[in-house]
């Protein structure tokens, strides 16, 4: 394969091109506290919005009385479903969610009414003064029960949000060595530090401009405009500073609400969730129940994989169809296996809606299949590295959807290179601060066992299954008093990941020009698609590269018209008139899902392996992760320092899911909606991370760069749990692993028996 070489337009060495790690363009403002996040925005005459939410998981709304709230001083608008301009529904993949609940509420936290008032205190007080008369209905809490015949239906069309079957090879294959298990992944929160926030400003033409922290401006627009009863041209979205996202900002939260209040009051309205409301106001990672069976030869070569995967989609569909497709397509892991049967279903329940979170379906099944691989290794007398090396996908191998690996699939290589990274030098420490329990001073080292575990994982990059995935970039090259300058305009959402650096570096590389500036992302340029699926390095990188190359074509044309060469005459001489090019970039098309999911549904794949070393206090069940090592194939590291940041940050989220992060539900209600009760890894919980970044360029990707963001969260969790299993000998079939699970050897049981690979509608009480 060949990659087009960088084309510097001048002989001067340009700094900050691809492969270097220039400083982020937004970093100086961020360290000074001067970067404007959505929650920092203000406007003259601004009102503040507040949301009244359902206290019930499932209830009929008999009546809503807003008279008291409307009469309160400083209250400028109170809106319920009866006041909405349209009955349009919202939703990322299915339009199934009302803007405000009309007749029924389907989860605790569902928005019921809105208030705009002069300040926060008045807005909150008025929302509390709205009287809603509810008639409670039976909740639908168990996603497996929800799929059985006769279950109470959450919505009219049944409780299956979507189901995916993968039928590959001989579904009745038998094998000498068989291992099986039931696994559970609990509900994880994205916990982006920046709360959901937006500022809506009514426009003179009857439209509205919304400044908002989101992952995908144009998808928001697609849902907002119909809900407001406005044409899309009257709704303008501008990206405000985003304090992290991780999937939580892919769905609509307050976008429509904020605009409705601004249009109703003809004043700017700011909405900003506090931390507690944030837990109720965005989707979470799908909780999963998984039933697995693996068959292998005596020497540990996979013969078949069968799996049933049930995801709790909660009350509305969000991105459940794509999450269950991922979970199912990748259910056998990055391994060669000739026969597979997978049945994945996302179910409607009256639990909080689940949607996108980093890793997106691949996280859940990776936890299960990597536990299975370790069971197989033990049954075959192999070590965890060898079983993965023996079965790892190579270039040309197909996954269980029969899609062959194009470009590198270096599974054996990443596992070996990960294993080759140095292990922690120290023995079990004596300083209590460095032992499990830390400052709790619970052990002096007695009863502490150290062990190591491995895992590998993979997922798709970019959108799959026939989605028309595109990114538009506009590049203008001009001359000002200081010389040539390029301006790049896309709608790509910088959420922390560093796409701003990628776009600058690509432009510098292509135009041979250091002075590049980025316009604020908004909807006046074409869609960029979402900051998700690890896709923007590829997509925004590809779009900016393509637009720059069109600019270069024009430079060459101008030079030729004057009978000179571009390189000889230099940029300034060719820029009497600016050059302005807009390009929409697409990756090659993918195939839609079908009955057996035997097709080329994905554009390319990302691979990573992790090794975790843990100290476990067998007495208290507390765990300290001592070190994580990782090897990941990124294709090409456009910005090596940012790549390390993605690897370390993703591993922190994987560590969180392994040992501490869980949204606990009771009767559908989030019991721990605060950072006091929802534990996040602190600097004391994070061990040193050793990274081996592997660069096997992908033939279709710009510069070969595949994307980075998700694999670090996928296999880090199972690697840590494998290490805890090795230290304790306990089965540990759910994450997060709790101290009780370690001390008492608890195993998670759903109470349902399902033959792995079977339709979960056939579940029987165990």
């Amino acid at each position: 394969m060949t990659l087009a070489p960088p084309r510097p337009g001048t002989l001067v060495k340009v700094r900050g091109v691809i492969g270097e790690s220039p400083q982020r363009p937004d970093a100086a403002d961020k360290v000074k506290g001067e970067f404007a996040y959505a929650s920092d925005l203000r406007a003259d005459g601004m009102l503040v919005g507040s949301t009244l939410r359902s206290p019930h998981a499932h209830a009929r709304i008999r009546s809503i009385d807003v008279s008291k709230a409307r009469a309160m001083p400083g209250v400028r608008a109170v809106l319920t479903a009866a006041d909405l301009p349209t009955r349009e529904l919202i939703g990322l993949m299915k339009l199934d969610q009302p803007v405000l609940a009309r007749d029924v509420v389907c989860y605790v936290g569902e928005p019921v009414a809105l208030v705009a008032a002069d300040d926060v205190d008045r807005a909150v007080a008025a929302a509390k003064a709205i009287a809603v008369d509810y008639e409670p209905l039976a909740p639908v809490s168990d996603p497996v029960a929800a799929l059985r015949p006769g279950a109470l239906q959450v919505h009219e069309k049944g409780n299956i949000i979507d189901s995916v079957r993968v039928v590959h090879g001989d579904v009745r294959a038998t094998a000498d060595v068989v291992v099986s298990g039931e696994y559970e992944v609990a509900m994880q929160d994205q916990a982006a530090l920046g709360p959901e926030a937006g500022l809506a400003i009514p426009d003179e033409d009857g439209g509205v401009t919304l400044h908002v922290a989101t992952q995908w401006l144009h998808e928001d627009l697609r849902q907002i405009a119909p809900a407001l009863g406005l044409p899309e041209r009257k709704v303008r979205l501008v990206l405000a500073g985003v304090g992290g996202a991780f999937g939580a900002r892919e769905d609509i939260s307050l976008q429509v609400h904020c605009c409705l209040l601004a249009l109703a009051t003809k004043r700017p309205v700011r909405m900003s969730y506090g931390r507690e409301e944030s837990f109720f106001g965005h989707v979470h990672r799908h909780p999963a129940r998984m039933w697995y069976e693996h068959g292998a030869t005596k020497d540990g070569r996979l013969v078949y994989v069968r799996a049933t995967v049930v995801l709790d989609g909660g009350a509305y569909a969000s991105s459940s169809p794509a999450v269950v497709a991922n979970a199912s397509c990748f259910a056998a892991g990055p391994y060669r296996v000739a026969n597979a049967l997978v049945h994945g279903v996302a179910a409607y329940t009256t639990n909080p809606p689940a949607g996108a979170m980093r890793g997106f379906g691949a996280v859940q099944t990776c936890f299960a299949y990597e536990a299975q691989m370790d069971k197989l290794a033990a049954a075959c007398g192999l070590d965890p590295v060898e079983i993965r090396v023996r079965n790892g996908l190579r270039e040309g191998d197909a996954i269980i959807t029969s899609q062959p690996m194009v470009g590198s699939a270096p599974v054996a290589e990443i596992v070996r290179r990960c294993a080759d990274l140095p292990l922690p030098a120290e023995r079990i420490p004596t300083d209590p601060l460095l032992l499990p329990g830390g400052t709790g001073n619970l052990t002096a080292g007695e009863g502490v066992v150290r062990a190591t575990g491995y895992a590998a994982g993979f997922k798709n990059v970019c959108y799959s299954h026939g989605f028309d995935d595109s990114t538009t970039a506009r590049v203008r090259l001009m001359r000002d008093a200081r010389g040539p300058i390029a301006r790049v305009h896309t709608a790509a959402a910088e959420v922390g990941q560093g796409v701003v650096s990628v776009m600058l570096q690509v432009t510098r590389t292509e135009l041979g020009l250091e002075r590049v500036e980025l316009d604020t992302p908004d909807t006046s340029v074409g869609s960029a698609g979402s900051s998700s699926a690890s896709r923007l390095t590829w997509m925004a990188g590809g779009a900016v590269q393509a637009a720059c190359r069109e600019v270069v074509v024009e430079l060459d044309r101008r030079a030729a018209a004057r009978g000179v060469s571009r390189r000889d005459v230099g940029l300034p001489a060719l820029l009497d008139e600016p050059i302005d090019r807009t390009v929409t970039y697409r990756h090659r098309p993918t195939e839609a899902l079908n009955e057996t999911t035997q097709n080329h549904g994905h554009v390319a794949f990302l691979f990573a392996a992790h090794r975790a070393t843990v100290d476990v206090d067998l007495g208290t069940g507390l765990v300290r992760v001592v070190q994580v090592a990782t090897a990941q194939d990124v294709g090409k590291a456009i910005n090596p320092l940012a790549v390390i940041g993605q690897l370390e940050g993703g591993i922190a989220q994987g560590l969180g899911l392994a040992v501490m992060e869980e949204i606990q539900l009771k009767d559908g209600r989030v019991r721990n909606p605060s950072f006091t009760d929802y534990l996040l890894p602190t600097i004391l919980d994070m061990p040193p991370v050793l990274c081996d970044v592997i660069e096997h360029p992908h033939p279709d990707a710009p510069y070969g760069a595949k994307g980075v963001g998700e694999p670090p969260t996928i296999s880090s969790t199972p690697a840590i749990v494998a290490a805890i299993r090795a230290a304790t000998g306990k089965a540990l079939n759910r994450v997060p692993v709790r101290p009780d699970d370690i001390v008492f050897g608890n195993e998670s049981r759903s109470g349902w028996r399902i033959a792995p690979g079977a339709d979960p509608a056939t579940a029987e009480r165990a």
Partner: protein
Amino acid sequence: MKLSLRLNGADRTADVAPHESLLTALRERFVLPGSKNACDQGECGSCSVLLDGELVCSCLVLAAAAEGREVRTAEGLTPDGGLHPVQRAFVEAGAVQCGFCTPGLIVAADALLRAEPEPTVAEIREALAGNICRCTGYGRIVDAVQRASKGIYE
């Protein structure tokens, strides 16, 4: 009620509510939104400021308690508007992603380095244990504080 304090080196006064936190007063009354509001509960450190030189979570301090006292926020670390050495170290080390945790971390790291110009990694981790970052996994943050500790504070 009136609140008067010395804020980033200047005498400032504003109307605040009696139950209002110092964080809310800084963000909404003094329009200094650099101190962040990620949890409002004392758990994340994103609101860290110096109150009479002492590191506090401004979400846990009543605005009224700052009466007549000196408050320094991330915006006020360098009077000339340039980059403070800790800020520069964060930029150079790649310790900033979304940046929502960053102002609080900068204030906390500055407080640490004033007290202990050459902290060990263990001391850095202990001092920053109250600051949550969801993006970075902390590796580059430790690196940034180590960079800043070299040659600036001695």
